[in-house]
């Protein structure tokens, strides 16, 4: 199975996605579109949580901010989709980077609670600021026309999403292998030490939050056009659990793992489509099972079994097993561990 390298698998996946509109029915194409949106969401969340180590719970809210901004600018202010989409992504990015300020003082559980409170607040705004957001019922968004390309709207949106997912994947891949990715992991593994080596915490946390906000916001704008509809429950706590589950199942601190996690969970979501009420329990249970039994995610299994999946050593702290030589020396030294 030497040909089953990361590069080949990803290229095959991309190729399949590229030709899918040629034979898939509209529903299958919609699911594929959803899959791509979740790939973007999972990669963005993984940059923040898996790499930079910031335990934030606002990804679904950022997703919602992107979707609402893109939708409302069109419906309320007459923007075209092509202006509204970048506005949604940029607003989510700005709000995201503002979160770096609380993240400078809060860590771990406290940051989780603060971001959770922010997420609940955005839900509240979506629900209650009815004159602007249309409340619990949500609102319809006009179809985006791709007549200038001669393709129907849903196919145009599908390709737009595919291009976004591929580009955002490549950007994340570049970032994590750069000095910036190294700084993220340094902050995750030891803030005080990172700072003592000259890493500006505010700057890098803001960058991680901004990037992840941008990814979620762009995903929201694409989702708004895929569904032609925006309503609060698309961006609630269940969504957040879903994003988290994708990142954990795929593998914290792995960009490719995010792609795997999003794919697996979207497929599972489809299998469970008929059992709407059981979905939340299944995702909660899955998240828990992975945290306990396979904390490094599916990607760790793939790396172990197949050649050509090595990533730069940006894995999550729990992972590394000491090689025999170092372990031997460790026992030879006595003293405080």
């Amino acid at each position: 199975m030497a040909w089953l390298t990361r590069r080949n698998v990803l290229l095959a996946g991309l190729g399949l996605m590229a030709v899918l509109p040629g034979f898939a029915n509209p529903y299958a194409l919609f699911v594929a579109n959803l899959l791509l949106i979740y790939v973007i969401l999972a990669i963005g969340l993984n940059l923040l949580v898996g790499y930079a180590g910031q335990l934030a719970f606002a990804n679904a809210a950022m997703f919602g901010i992107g979707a609402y901004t893109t939708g409302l600018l069109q419906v309320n202010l007459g923007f075209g989709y092509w202006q509204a989409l970048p506005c949604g992504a940029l607003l989510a990015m700005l709000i995201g980077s503002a979160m770096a300020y609380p993240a400078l003082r809060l860590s771990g559980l406290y940051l989780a609670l603060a971001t959770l409170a922010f997420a609940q607040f955005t839900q509240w705004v979506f629900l209650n600021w009815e004159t602007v957001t249309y409340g619990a019922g949500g609102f319809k968004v006009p179809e985006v026309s791709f007549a200038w390309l001669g393709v129907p709207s849903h196919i145009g949106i599908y390709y737009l999403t595919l291009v976004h997912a591929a580009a955002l994947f490549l950007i994340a891949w570049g970032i994590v292998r750069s000095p910036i990715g190294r700084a993220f992991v340094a902050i995750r593994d030891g803030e005080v030490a990172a700072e003592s080596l000259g890493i500006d915490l505010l700057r890098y946390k803001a960058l991680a939050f901004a990037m992840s906000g941008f990814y979620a916001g762009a995903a929201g704008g694409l989702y708004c056009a895929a569904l032609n509809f925006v309503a609060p429950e698309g961006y609630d706590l269940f969504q957040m659990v879903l994003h988290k589950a994708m990142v954990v199942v795929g593998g914290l601190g792995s960009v490719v793992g995010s792609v795997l996690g999003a794919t697996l969970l979207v497929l599972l979501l489809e299998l469970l489509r008929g059992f709407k009420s059981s979905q939340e329990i299944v995702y909660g249970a899955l998240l828990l099972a992975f945290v306990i039994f396979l904390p490094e995610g599916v990607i760790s299994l793939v790396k172990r079994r197949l050649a050509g999946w090595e990533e730069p050593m940006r894995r999550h702290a729990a992972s590394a097993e000491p090689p025999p030589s170092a372990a031997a020396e460790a026992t030879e030294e006595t003293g405080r561990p």
Partner: protein
Amino acid sequence: MSVLTVDQVSIGFGGVVALDDVTLEIPPAEIRGIIGPNGAGKTTLLNVICGINRPDRGDVRLDGASLIGLKPSRIAAKGLGRTFQTARLFRGLTVLENMMVGLHLETRSGLFGAAFSSRAMRAEERELAERARRSLEFVGFAHLAELPGAALSFGQSRIVEIARTLIHEPKVVLLDEPAVGLSLNRSAELDRLLRRIRDERGVTLVMIEHVIRLVMEVSDRVTVLSYGRNIAEGRPADIRENPEVITAYLGRALDARRAAS
């Protein structure tokens, strides 16, 4: 002319006075030992110098410029390095990558270079990796380069942490108990390494140490803290004979030992 000056620094935490009017003048290329019983304020002194804690009163100057109010990352950029009481390698990065974080302040490529894996960024990365490798050679650890930080033994982490701080060529390095938990062999290795850092690199070292043998052997001068006050300072031989030090420090150490047993 001193490279590092701690000028009448005081700091308290709630009711505890951790440092009380402490003054230090440390000339270039000196190894300064800091000793004192547990809770004397040694770690707090380092934290004040490197910007983790802000003093209530007093000033800290590096090459004559005040460091008060600067973030730790800014102070690092001015040429101050430090290691911690418990070694802090980044567990998820390789040893080589850990060393490259030490070169963070010298990276020039920005967000766009990173996002698009630009040629300039990759060239810079190769150059940084090369320097990191050479620094690992300086401490004799080139063979560990590709291991994850989490895989290193306690003693190895210690040495890599020191090398990681040195790579950016700081003027002053603060070491918090570098020898704790080291085997005798490694501890002797550390002696030699610290002297080489001073002699070959001209770096000033401020070292907290409980292992009295190490402090007395490598320090040019020793400062004794007790209850947050600087109670004595001088050459190791003089400190050893100082009656105030013997009562304050050794006396308390004996008390502690009696209490522990």
